[in-house]
């Protein structure tokens, strides 16, 4: 991220995302996520990442009342993602970085998500068009990218140039992201293979 910031990228996260990615992991008994949390905090300290106040409550409420199963709404979107969306909406010409596939799918492919939910629950899922339209009206034509695109873009910009086999390092990094929870599929990894 520091590399991309030097290239002019500006990263902003809501307070709720800092809470989830820094504060809570550092409170866990297991120390497994300390390094990642401390690395993010370091980026905040160095002002590579700005932490801002955001209120995505309304977006979250709308998103979580789009699909219903047996009269009950499905909780699809959390405060972190909703606040990040709200921050992006407040900016002009924005992109939002979200690694979780559910929120991305809700924005890009709501009918595909409906099908997925119906397959999972073995029952009809009700789509509340009014809430979805209100959600879309607020987020607009927002672009979603994942950590994997940031890494691929950094590769294009020369981040791995000092490595002997930089393409292999890029692909290794993408696999690492996938196995750490970034919502990319094996098919998308194949796409990266073909692109680079």
């Amino acid at each position, binding site marked *: 991220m520091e590399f991309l910031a030097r290239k002019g990228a500006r990263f902003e996260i809501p307070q709720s995302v800092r809470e989830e990615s820094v504060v809570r992991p550092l409170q866990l008994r297991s120390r497994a996520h300390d390094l*990642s949390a401390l690395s993010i905090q370091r980026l905040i300290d160095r002002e590579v990442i700005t932490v801002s106040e955001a209120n995505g409550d309304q977006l979250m409420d709308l998103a979580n009342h789009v699909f219903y199963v047996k009269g009950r709404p499905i909780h699809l979107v959390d405060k972190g993602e909703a606040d990040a969306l709200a921050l992006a909406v407040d900016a002009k010409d924005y*992109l939002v970085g979200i690694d979780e596939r559910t929120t991305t799918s809700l924005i890009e492919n709501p009918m595909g998500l409906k099908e997925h939910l119906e397959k999972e629950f073995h029952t009809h899922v009700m789509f509340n068009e009014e809430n979805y339209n209100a959600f879309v009206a607020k987020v607009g034509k927002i672009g979603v990218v994942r950590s994997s695109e940031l890494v691929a873009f950094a590769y294009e910009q020369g981040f791995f140039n000092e490595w002997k086999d930089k393409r292999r390092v890029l692909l290794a990094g993408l696999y690492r992201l996938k196995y750490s929870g970034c919502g990319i599929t094996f098919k998308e990894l194949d796409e990266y293979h073909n692109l680079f």
Partner: protein
Amino acid sequence: MDKILKAFSVENIPELRRLSREYSRRAAMEDSDEMANRAVLSYFLSKVLQKEGMDAGLRERIASLIKKQRIKEIYEEVARAIPKKFVMELPDKARVKIAARIHGHGVSLKRAAEMTDAPLPEVMDYVGKTMIPERIRTTRSVKSRLAMLRRRLLDS
């Protein structure tokens, strides 16, 4: 809980696994912490039955706690009775696994983790190692996401 008790009493591990899947789905559908906890318990018991140190006395004590719905005490009882190396992380692993399963049904990661009281980063890690992300389709290609990023970062 009767179903869990019945399956546990006759050491029916496949039934406990089936119940765990059923309760996970209901937890997602009903946004229910109670169902999520039942799913964790069913899965936990299916694993415990396979452990060395599970004897008739412990089985009876667990059955009695299931009847009284004193779930937390079940985990404590097992931790006391079975050598640590066999069960130390079992309740935590069960929580993470069931949270991932609930997320796979469509519920957000954080809500799924909250339902089972599992640490969110561990659920994320676990999900990354499963086929769960493959099940949710998005429409935009990697190429088009990269193009968006280039436009935004190079043209600004």
